[in-house]
């Protein structure tokens, strides 16, 4: 019995490794679970994309509003995905095109970490807003207002970005450190050295917040 289950898990491991290492995740075959978001898998140009918008009844920000990929357990490694953000027609004025990636998500979605971007800030005429182009937070205890208040400028940063353009996000996680690389730049645009959850494994989610019509494609996970 032990032997069977062992070999079964090896097969599982091998097949899942092949699936995650070799090719981008196929959204038509992956099991996607919408959590407090509306989701559809669509064709945009030649790309298969996942389109995501936050459930408008969720009023708070930095909530578990994501599309979670079922069957992925990620601790260290890299997550790459191309994201494009539009503003919904009814987006409130403070919408920033919030879009990003959640990781280390607990099974019941009660805890996770996330790096997201605010594309409307990237070229704003206001340096403070520009410096808020990239955000890290950890749910539920370290949402952005708390981090910004207690450790200003430590979990946020600036990078050039805009709405309606594909932006490649690559998050590299190593223990309690995460780095965000944008558009294949050699240098990271955000460095977090003390992930609040860190050193634990969990799920991966495609995250949006209020006002965003978000598109995700070419997701690759390397463990």
């Amino acid at each position, binding site marked *: 019995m032990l032997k069977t289950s062992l070999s079964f898990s090896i097969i599982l491991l091998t097949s899942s490794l092949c699936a995650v290492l070799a090719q981008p995740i196929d959204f038509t075959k992956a099991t996607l679970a919408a959590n407090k978001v509306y989701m559809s898998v669509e064709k945009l140009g030649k790309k298969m994309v996942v389109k995501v918008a936050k459930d408008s009844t969720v009023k708070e920000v930095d909530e578990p509003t994501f599309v979670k990929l079922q069957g992925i357990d990620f601790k260290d490694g890299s997550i790459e995905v191309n994201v494009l953000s539009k503003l919904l027609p009814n987006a409130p004025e403070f919408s920033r095109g919030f879009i990003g990636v959640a990781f280390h998500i607990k099974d019941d979605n009660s805890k996770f970490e996330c790096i997201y971007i*605010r594309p409307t800030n990237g070229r704003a005429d206001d*340096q*403070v807003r520009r*410096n808020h182009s990239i955000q890290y937070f950890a749910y539920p205890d370290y949402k952005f207002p708390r981090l910004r208040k207690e450790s200003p400028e*430590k979990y946020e940063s600036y990078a050039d970005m805009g709405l309606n353009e594909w932006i490649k996000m690559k998050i590299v996680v190593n223990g309690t450190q995460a780095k965000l690389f944008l558009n294949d730049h050699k240098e990271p645009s955000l460095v977090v*050295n003390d992930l609040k959850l860190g050193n634990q494994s969990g799920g991966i989610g495609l995250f949006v917040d209020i006002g965003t019509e978000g598109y995700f494609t070419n997701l690759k996970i390397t463990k």
Partner: protein
Amino acid sequence: MKKIQLILILVLGTLYVSGQKQKLTLKKQTFELHNVTGSIIEFEGKQVLKIERDLKALPFDVNNIEKTVDEPHYARLVGLEDFENGIIEVKMYSQLQDPLPYPGVAGFIGVYFRIKEDDSAFESIYVRPKVGRVNKQLFRNHAVQYISYPHAKFDTLRKSYPPGSYEGSAPVALKEWIKMRIEVNGETAEMFINDMKYSSFIVDKMLGKHKIGGVGLYVDIGTIGYFKDLKVTRGQLKKKSTNEKVDDI
């Protein structure tokens, strides 16, 4: 005749010693050194202006940092006293002195503009190349600095405004050429690095009362700064079209 020349040299020499500022000529531009030492040297095959802050002329006090940095230590472009709006571009290269005069140095290098004739006021955008790619996000976010002399130096700005109001990050590092372009327009100044399409830094409301003046190349403590290809283009005030509402998110 030779005698007259000799006397002339002696007189000029005395003038220089008694407080005339040293001047250096690089191609068609002449620079006057204000509290910096400098020379024109060949660097990587090109003639460049090399400057370092003169700590004898303008001492630094580790116990009084803000008072003794962000001061008039720079090379002033001679013959241009009416820069108000327009574009300043220059290539700069920052290297740290060895040994370091003080551990907190960051390769400070940049541009002064709208400098009052007597150095009593100016605006500046400078970078800290040492922290441009460091592994601490807070430091990276301080890679670019705006100041307005004399009342809004870096620490005053940090204490008086929301974090990040006059600082930001940019792709800069020590020991590499950085092309800085500053577009000055009324109350705003935008800084572009290495001809990137979008500005890396914007000052939406400059703080200086003095709106017109000279242009200079700046270094602060611990920096050996090399400059070349300075180009100043004076322009007219342009009206801004966008007026996006700003809030805190």
